[in-house]
């Protein structure tokens, strides 16, 4: 068992380590490790205008996606959890899990067909990119929220609040949202990480000036190895940071609300 775990960890960590090494290495051709130490590659990425723009676009898309999935996901999860009929619950579940099963490529092609028409000429706008990311990431947030609602027995908590005199709005913002703060935070971390790293759909529907980081990163793979490594490490850091930020934000916001009694 420990051997398997160690092997798995090696498998997981080795590429990342190599990327990190490569991003600060000098020349790296046909040897196990590069020779020399340099911060040149990072400076190159920084000085590249398209990478800087992509960095900002990715952050902006990620933030917007988090806000939108939270705003849509919470009420939707609540509705599905509270649905009286079993059939409705199952249908709703299948519906919101569908984007997980459908390849993003299919989704992207659909987007291209629909949004390149004269009636809906939104292809290439950053808003459409956000919409696409919302569709792709919402299932993960929903899944986390609905599971937590079941675990907390939210219906009993709500009844308790009702018997104590709370109306719907008071229950929703005073009990439901704060009770779900942990699952909301962990769900949003996942949403943020997925959004930052999303390539397939973004590559198809992003406009030239609103390409997110992973799409631009692909270009780097055709250039110098060190440059590609540095650009990839930045993406990794970006995903980790946005995930952590979403977690902290989700935690902080509802934490404040729950605190003042």
């Amino acid at each position, binding site marked *: 068992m420990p051997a398997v775990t160690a092997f798995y960890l090696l498998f997981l960590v080795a590429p990342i380590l190599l990327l990190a090494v490569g991003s600060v290495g000098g020349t790296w051709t046909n040897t196990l490790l590069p020779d020399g130490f340099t911060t040149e590659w990072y400076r190159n990425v920084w000085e590249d205008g398209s990478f800087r723009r992509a960095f900002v676009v990715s952050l902006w898309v990620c933030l917007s996606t988090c806000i939108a999935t939270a705003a849509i996901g919470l009420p939707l999860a609540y509705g599905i959890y509270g649905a009286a009929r079993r059939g409705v619950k199952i249908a709703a579940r299948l519906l919101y899990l569908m984007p997980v099963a459908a390849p993003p490529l299919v989704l992207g092609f659909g987007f291209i067909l629909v949004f390149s028409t004269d009636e809906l000429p939104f292809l290439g706008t950053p808003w459409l990119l956000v919409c696409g990311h919302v569709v792709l990431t919402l299932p993960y947030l929903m899944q986390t929220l609905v599971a937590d609602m079941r675990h907390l027995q939210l219906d009993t908590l709500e009844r308790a609040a*009702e018997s104590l005199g709370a109306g719907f709005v008071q229950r929703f913002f*005073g009990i439901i949202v704060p009770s779900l703060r942990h699952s909301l935070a962990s769900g949003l971390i996942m949403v943020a990480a997925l959004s930052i790293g999303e390539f397939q759909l973004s590559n198809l529907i992003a406009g030239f000036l609103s390409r997110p980081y992973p799409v631009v990163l692909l270009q780097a793979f055709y250039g110098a190895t060190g440059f590609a490594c540095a650009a990839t490490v930045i993406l990794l850091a970006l995903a980790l940071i946005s995930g952590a930020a979403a977690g902290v934000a989700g935690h902080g916001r509802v934490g404040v609300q729950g605190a003042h009694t």
Partner: protein
Amino acid sequence: MSIAISGLTFRYPGGAGVFGIDLDVAPGAFCAVIGPSGCGKTTLLQLIAGFLRPETGRIALSGVDVADVAPKDRNVGVVFQNYALFPHMTALENVAYPLKLRGVSAAERRERAGQALESARLSALADRRPNQLSGGQQQRVALARALVFRPRALLLDEPLSALDAAHRAAMRDEIRAVQREHGIATLHVTHDQEEALSIADVVAVMDAGRLLQLAPPRELYDRPVNRFVAGFVGHANLFDAKVAKGALETPVGPMRTLDPLPEDGATVTVLLRPEALEPIVEAHVREGVAAADGALVLMGAVTRDRFLGSLRRFDLAVAGGTILGETSSQAPILGVRVPPGAVRVLPPEA
């Protein structure tokens, strides 16, 4: 502070529900509702709390009809089976929550919630969250929260079922003490008949959505209205019997009773409570009806013997059936005497 229910009917889509319930809980009285699972006792509680809307019937709390009052405005304290404490609030915040909803100032609600926790001996734990409290502590917080806003009635939905046996008995007494102190009409739903008998002023027995009997515990035990109640409340020997010449013909032998008897030829149910039977420990006692007091003497063999600490419950195989008896004696049992005072005749069933 009373609960008055009349003609209350509610039907689930499947056909279960409650049907024509009449139930009054006097101001300050403690009523336990018992019955097997699915008998409608929890439905009844949810109807009173307003979580379900009755088809017909009337519910009045302190004389006010609450048919069209939303649950949040009913002013009823409810303690749930799993306590339903809000996980993101401390014990103090949980108890203060109903006061906050009623617009009580921060200082006053802190004071009142603090007092409520103090009388529940939980002051030291006021800043803990529910997941840092034991089951019994959560229970006491839930009870304090349900009473702090001075509700018109208190509803308890199997509040003790999640506690272990040792805490349950203590908590039972505590609930009763707190309820007395507040003088609040209380409905306590439970499937534990021993709990119901020990805690309540009156006990309501339900089965299949109907209220079978509403009586003080002693009366319920001594004078059950039918076989179901007799069997559900406490342990019982139940026999079909035919009335003949002022006595009862049972499968185990003729019995005399002090109860009034219907005319000869009628079929009735006879109830013998196990502790009312007198075990026989000396050999060579004659079987049959004793001349002196009209008691029926049954000799037989003990087939099961259960040691329950202070008492012992045994099955005695006799000619014509099995008798369940109780005694504190540890001597070998050879038979039982059934004195006429132990023989209860249940009213004929409709």
